[in-house]
């Protein structure tokens, strides 16, 4: 199942999908806003339950080399995501100045 979503429930439109990158392309210490996740129903549901819902800000805390897992911060909690899982989460990267 795949839901390509350009808008989120609050009506804030995300820019065209060309600005969207996968979580794995975001470098350590950088932030992004979740646009959507694609993949199986179970996976996107699990991600949503863990707080990875569209519109939420995430920060990359750590990345392991060789297609290893990522550690991210979302809603004040640190989460580990496998490489395969993270590659299915698309984010709109935030500029460095929007930190804080």
């Amino acid at each position: 199942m795949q839901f390509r979503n350009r808008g989120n429930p609050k009506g804030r439109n995300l820019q065209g999908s060309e600005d969207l990158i996968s979580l794995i392309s975001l470098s350590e210490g950088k932030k992004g806003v979740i646009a959507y996740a694609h993949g199986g129903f179970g996976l996107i549901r699990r991600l949503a339950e863990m707080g990875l819902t569209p519109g939420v800000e995430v920060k990359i805390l750590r990345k392991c080399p060789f297609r290893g897992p990522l550690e991210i911060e979302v809603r004040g909690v640190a989460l580990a995501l496998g490489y395969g899982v993270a590659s299915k989460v698309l984010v709109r990267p935030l500029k460095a100045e929007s930190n804080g």
Partner: protein
Amino acid sequence: MAKQLRIALAGNANVGKSAIFNQLTGLNQNVGNWPGKTVERAEGTLHFKGYKIRVIDLPGIYSLSTFSMEEIASRDYIAVEKPDIIINVIDASALERNLYFTLKLLELEAPLIIDLNQVDFAAKRGIRIDVEKLSEALGVPVVPTVAITGSGTNELLSTVIAVAEGEEKLKPLKVRYGKEIEKKVRSIEKLVGAKLPQLCTVYPPRWIAIKLLEKDTDVAGKLKNHENGKEVLNYAEEWATELEKIHGEPSPIVIASERYFLANKLAKEVTAIEAPPRISLEQKLDAITTNKIFGYPILASVLASMFALIFIGGNFLSSGLEFLFNNFSIYIKEMLSSFLPAIAVDLINKGVLAGIIAGITIALPYIVPFYIILALLEDSGYLPRAAFLMDNLMHKIGLHGKAFIPLILGYGCNVPACIGCRIMETERERFLAAFVVALIPCSARTVVILGLVGRFVGLHVALALYAFDLILVFILGRIAFKALPGEPVGLIMEMPPYKKPSTRNILLKTWSRTRDFAYIAFPIIIVGSVVIEALALSGFTSYMAEVASPLINGWLGLPPITGIPLIFGVLRKELTLILLSELMPLESLTAIQMIVFSMVTMIYIPCLATIAAFKREFGWKKALAVTTIDMALALFLGGLAYRLLSLVMAS
């Protein structure tokens, strides 16, 4: 008679819920399973202000494990058993995330008290929560606690009593969604109320409506058993489809987003960030232990020192206890001989007593230190880091990082490791992990490997056997991964901050696990010992050894008599060595024979207690399948090793 109360603890994992449970109930607790589910259920009792209070520790949500199974167990308990009060334990340092679950509990219309735990830890991170404001916003009492020290638990219990006696009234917050969702929820709710009156006596109709809109498969399943269920389901499905059309996302995501939006709003209103958090010691420790370079040597040394401690400590305890109990068994034997026939004495002595004694002197000395260290690793928060580091490698055998945790457990004992596979998300991952776990040489197998090969052939050869086993685990894991149908699941795991573990908690955990182990393993060991002793007395065992001789002698190149210890070894692996030493001087075996013997023992069958654990977790069929595969593999590899080693030695 004391007045009775039934309370349940609910909350996310890593919020210190089990620490609260331990503070409340101490040693008066027992751990079992939820009926029909492989989810742990802990229960305890306490007395307070003239009340006898039963406490049920509901499984932690989104812990390391399958969130759905545990969430379903929790909410069914709340809705069906209707405990007097639910204590929702939440972590003050991750309020938003925890309030998400609180909102779900409010939707269940459960009588709620909030235990705002780890306030000390939150304060350290510069987070201060306005307790009054939170209590006002949620409409239920909020009691701040520090579970590790026990501070606040008395206030918590007083609040429970106050609510139970009606002194303190609950005015729980009604969770309201946005207009779009709310409209749909209400119209489904109306239909649910009209068509499913029976179900509505158990679950609140509004809750059912929300779950249906969320496409909750468990609730949908419940509806199917009802007369008008199908009609309601179809109706709800239409609304869900419409919601998806508007939002362009699956309806569960839409509702989860809204709920998180509410949790975020609530959390913001009551939280004050006092100081920008400085980098704490815990964070530094976290950075080093998950570092892509330093993390691995640290992991290796943690594991190495863990095993060293277990073996040194275990050896010490084991020899001490053995000395004690051997004298005891001689005494018992003499006492029994005075009034029982020799056969009965043998059955009791070599069967029942030897079983109990071997369990106490061989299994427990290794298990207890292992559990202590495990609880230490668990409570400090290191295990998820280890899982994080190993994720990449575990993916090669179709599992993810979390499976590394039962794998480590396996080196101690396969029984808890097999149960530990519950932290995997799907039935497939759980079985795959357990299959691999059964091949991990537990402490009993280590006794054989070190006691035979390590002692007589050389430590390097023993270590080579371990290395061979790891390769085997990897290859077989990969084959099983390819052979089992289904998609591998990726890693999604919370990484709780490092915390200082409490001694009390560690000892309580060790105690309850040891007891759990004894309940599973001891009956099997005792019954098995008696049966095997009876077989030996009837001459069946030596007959079996004779029959098996072509296999033992012809194929494996071992003296025929070694068939007996190998048969007995099903019971407990270390028994193979003990029996072997009774049957013949160990030195009379050749180096090749020792290696082959140890190798077969290492692989051939998970012991009887492990088979029982397999049966409990996966059913008879899978338990037998694993046993058969391992046995065939051990014999095949043993024979192969015998021939290859003979060739190498000859040249």
